[in-house]
C-alpha cells in the first residue's frame, strides 16, 4: 500500500442490495462477500428493506440480544433503508447502481433487471444454477449441502449424514463471490469489460466437494463418510479430543511418536493395510492419548513433524497463543454494544491487518448510517 493509512479497495463503491423475502442462506453469502470488500476499504452501502435485514435478528445472539451473526457479517459497511416495492425506492437504487462499481444482489430479486441495467458490474448470488430451473424452489443452506454432496461425506457410514458446523455453504459462496467481485473490479480498473458474476451456493458446494466427483470418476465408486472406518479418527485425551491426521510419508514419524512395537506389524506398513486393520490400529494408538493433554500432544507430535489436530472450541481460540501473537482477533468498540472481539480478515498484507469497523445501526428510512 502506498501509505500506512490507505486501504486497497478504498477507491471503489459497492452496493449490497438486501431485497425482502430472500432465503437467509443467500443473504449470508452476499453479506460476507461485501464485508470482505468493506474491511479492505471499499465504500459498501448496504440497502436494507423496511424493518431491516432479517439477519439483524438471527442467532447466535450476543448477551445484549443483538445478533452476533449480523455484527460479524456487516463490519465496515454503511446502511440505507429503501422500500424497493415503491417507485421512489427503485429510483433511488437506480441512482446508486449507476455510480457504484459493483452491485451485489440475491436471485430471484424483484430488482434484478434494475440492478443489471446500471453501470455497476452485477454480482448475483443464487441458490441454484439457471439450468436447474429451480429459482423458486424452497431452499435452505442444509439442503444445498445435501445437493452438493457434502452431507454424504461426514459422519458414520451406517448412520445419518452430518452437516459441517457454522454456515459453510453460505460462507464458501461468499468467499467465491468476493473473488468474483475482485476480478470484476480488476477488469474495470484496467479499462476492460468486466464479466458479470453469478455464484450459486449449489455449484460452490459441489466445487468444494470435487474429490467426491473425482473419486467417483476414477473408480466408479463414490467416496463417502467413513467414520470409524477412516484412517483419520477423533480420539479422546485427558482434556478433550484430538484429530489423528498424517500423510502417507508421515506414517513412520507417527509410529515413532506412539512408540509401540505392535505398530511395526507389517499389516500396518502401508495405507491399504492400516485401513483394513483400522480397529486394531486404534486399539494400539488410542491409549497413548488418554493420559496427555491436548497441549502436550501437540508439542510432542509437532516435534516429530506429525500434524495431529487438538480440537478447540470457539471460546478456547480466544486464548490460542498463535492467534494472540498474530493479533488475529480484533477488538472493536461498538457505539451501543461496547467492546466486541471477532476474527479479522485472515490475511496480513506487508504485516498489516485490516481492523473491522462496527456494523451499521438500523437506519431511519431514507437516511444512511
Amino acid at each position, binding site marked *: 500500500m502506498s501509505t500506512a493509512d490507505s486501504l486497497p479497495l478504498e477507491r471503489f463503491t459497492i452496493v449490497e442490495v438486501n431485497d425482502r423475502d430472500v432465503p437467509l442462506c443467500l443473504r449470508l453469502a452476499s453479506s460476507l462477500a461485501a464485508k470482505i470488500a468493506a474491511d479492505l476499504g471499499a465504500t459498501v452501502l448496504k440497502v436494507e428493506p423496511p424493518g431491516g435485514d432479517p439477519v439483524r435478528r438471527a442467532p447466535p445472539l450476543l448477551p445484549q440480544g443483538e445478533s452476533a451473526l449480523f455484527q460479524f457479517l456487516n463490519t465496515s459497511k454503511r446502511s440505507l433503508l429503501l422500500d424497493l416495492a415503491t417507485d421512489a425506492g427503485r429510483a433511488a437504487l437506480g441512482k446508486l447502481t449507476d455510480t457504484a462499481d459493483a452491485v451485489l444482489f440475491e436471485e430471484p430479486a424483484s430488482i434484478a433487471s434494475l440492478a443489471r441495467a446500471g453501470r455497476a458490474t452485477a454480482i448475483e448470488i443464487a441458490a441454484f444454477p439457471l439450468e436447474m*430451473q429451480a429459482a423458486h424452489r424452497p431452499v*435452505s443452506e442444509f439442503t444445498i449441502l445435501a445437493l452438493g454432496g457434502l452431507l454424504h461425506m461426514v459422519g458414520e457410514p451406517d448412520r445419518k449424514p*452430518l452437516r459441517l458446523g457454522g454456515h459453510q455453504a453460505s460462507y464458501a459462496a461468499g468467499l*467465491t463471490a468476493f473473488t468474483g467481485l475482485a476480478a470484476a473490479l480488476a477488469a474495470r480498473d484496467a479499462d476492460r469489460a468486466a*464479466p458479470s458474476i453469478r455464484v450459486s451456493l*449449489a455449484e460452490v458446494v459441489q466445487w468444494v466437494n470435487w474429490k*467426491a466427483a473425482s473419486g467417483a470418476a476414477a473408480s466408479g465408486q463414490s467416496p463417502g463418510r467413513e467414520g470409524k472406518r477412516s484412517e483419520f479418527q477423533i480420539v479422546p485425551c485427558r482434556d478433550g479430543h484430538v484429530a489423528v491426521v498424517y500423510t502417507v510419508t508421515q506414517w513412520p514419524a507417527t509410529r515413532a511418536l506412539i512408540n509401540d512395537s505392535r505398530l511395526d506389524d507389517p499389516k500396518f506398513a502401508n495405507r491399504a493395510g492400516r485401513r483394513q486393520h483400522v480397529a486394531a490400529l486404534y486399539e494400539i494408538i488410542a491409549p497413548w492419548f488418554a493420559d496427555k493433554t491436548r497441549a502436550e500432544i501437540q508439542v510432542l507430535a509437532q516435534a516429530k513433524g506429525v500434524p495431529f489436530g487438538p480440537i478447540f472450541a470457539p*471460546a478456547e481460540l480466544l486464548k490460542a497463543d498463535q492467534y494472540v501473537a498474530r493479533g488475529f482477533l480484533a477488538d472493536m468498540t461498538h457505539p451501543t454494544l461496547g467492546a466486541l472481539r471477532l476474527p479479522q480478515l485472515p490475511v496480513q498484507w506487508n504485516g498489516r491487518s485490516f481492523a473491522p469497523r462496527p456494523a451499521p445501526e438500523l437506519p431511519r428510512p431514507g437516511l444512511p448510517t
Partner: protein
Amino acid sequence: MTKRPLSGVRVLDFGLLTAGANTSAMLADLGAEVLKIESGAYLDPFRVVGKIDNDDGWWNRSPQFRFTNRNKRGLALNLKDPQGQRVIRALAAQCDVVVENFRRGVLDRAGLGYRDLSAVNSRIVFAAISSQGDTGPERMNVSFGSTLDATSGLAALTGYEDEEPRISGMDVNYPDQIVSLFATGIVITAIMEARRTGKGCFLDFSQREVASFTIGEEILAAAADPQRRCRRQGNQAEGIVQQDTYLCSDGRWIAVTCDSEQPDLAAFCAGHASADAVAELLMRGIAAAPCNDGNDLLQDKALAGVTLARDRRGTLVKGLPYRLDGKGIAVERPAPDLGQHTDEVLRGLLGYDDAMLDELDKSGVTSTTPTIGEV
C-alpha cells in the same frame, strides 16, 4: 477476443496440493498465465497421493493432480541447486505474482523468499499460504487438511447430538478448499494495487485463520458470553424449527429443513422413495434435497455444468465455482507432465539456447522424471 480480467498477469506457481495449486488455477481461470514450478526431487504431492499405477510415467497420471492443475504450464527446476535458483530468480523478474504453500523457511533457504524475489522485481505480489501464518510461536507447525478442522474450531461444532467432534476427513479436506477461494480474491486485490502503485507486497495467509474466519460469529458470540456452551447439534441449527436427514424407502437419505414442526416426517420419508419424498415436500413448500454422492454429481449435468470440465483428452478436471458472463471455462491445456514446458518457457521468456538447456539437463537442474525413489 476481449481481454480477460487477468490477461497479461504471469504467475510463478510453487503451489502444492489444493491450497496453493488451486489458488493459481483460479488465477488462470481469469486469464493469468501460470508457470507451475516443481522439481524432480520434489513433486506436487498430488502426483504421489493420487498414484494409480506403477508403470513408467505414473507421476503424470494422478487424477487429483490433473484435476487441479489444468491450464498451467509446468517446469521442473531444482530449488536446491544454485543454478536452479538463478533460473527461478530470472523467471521471477518476468512474473507479477508468486504463490507458494511450502513450510515456512523453505523458499528463504533457497534464496527465493519474498525478500530475494522482491529485490529482483519490486512489483511482485507474493502470496505465502501456510498452516499457521508467517509469524507467531506456531509458525513452523505442520498440518494436513483436517488438522485445521480441529484447530480452527470447526470440528467442535460438527458432530452427532452431544457426541464427540467430527472432521471433514481426507476425502474433503475442507479447510484446503476454502483457503483458495479467499486467497485468490486477495491476490487479485493486490495485483490491482501493484498495477496502480508499481509496488508489490507480501501476503501472509494462515489456513487455520481462514477456517476460523468461517465460524466468525461463533467466536464473536463466545467472546461476548463466557457462559455460552459449545455443543454438537447434529443437523439441527439455532433458530431453525426442524432440520435433519431422513432415510427413505429406497435406502437413500434426504435432507429437510422445516419452518414448522413436522412430527411425522421420519415416517413419511420411510414410506416414500427419496425422489418422491423430495418432490412431495417441495410441493408443500418445504426445503428438501437428496443427499447426493459423487456418482450423482457426475450425472447431474445441470448442477455440474461448469463446476466440472473436461480437457481435450476427455479427462475430467476442475471447473469454475462461479459463472463469468454466464459461462464456465475452456480447458485450453491439460495439467502438465513433470517438466513438460521447461525448455519452451526458458527459451521464450529467458532466451535460453540449446547449449544452455543441455547444460541444465546434464547438471540435473531440469528433469522430466522424479528422483524421489520408490513411493
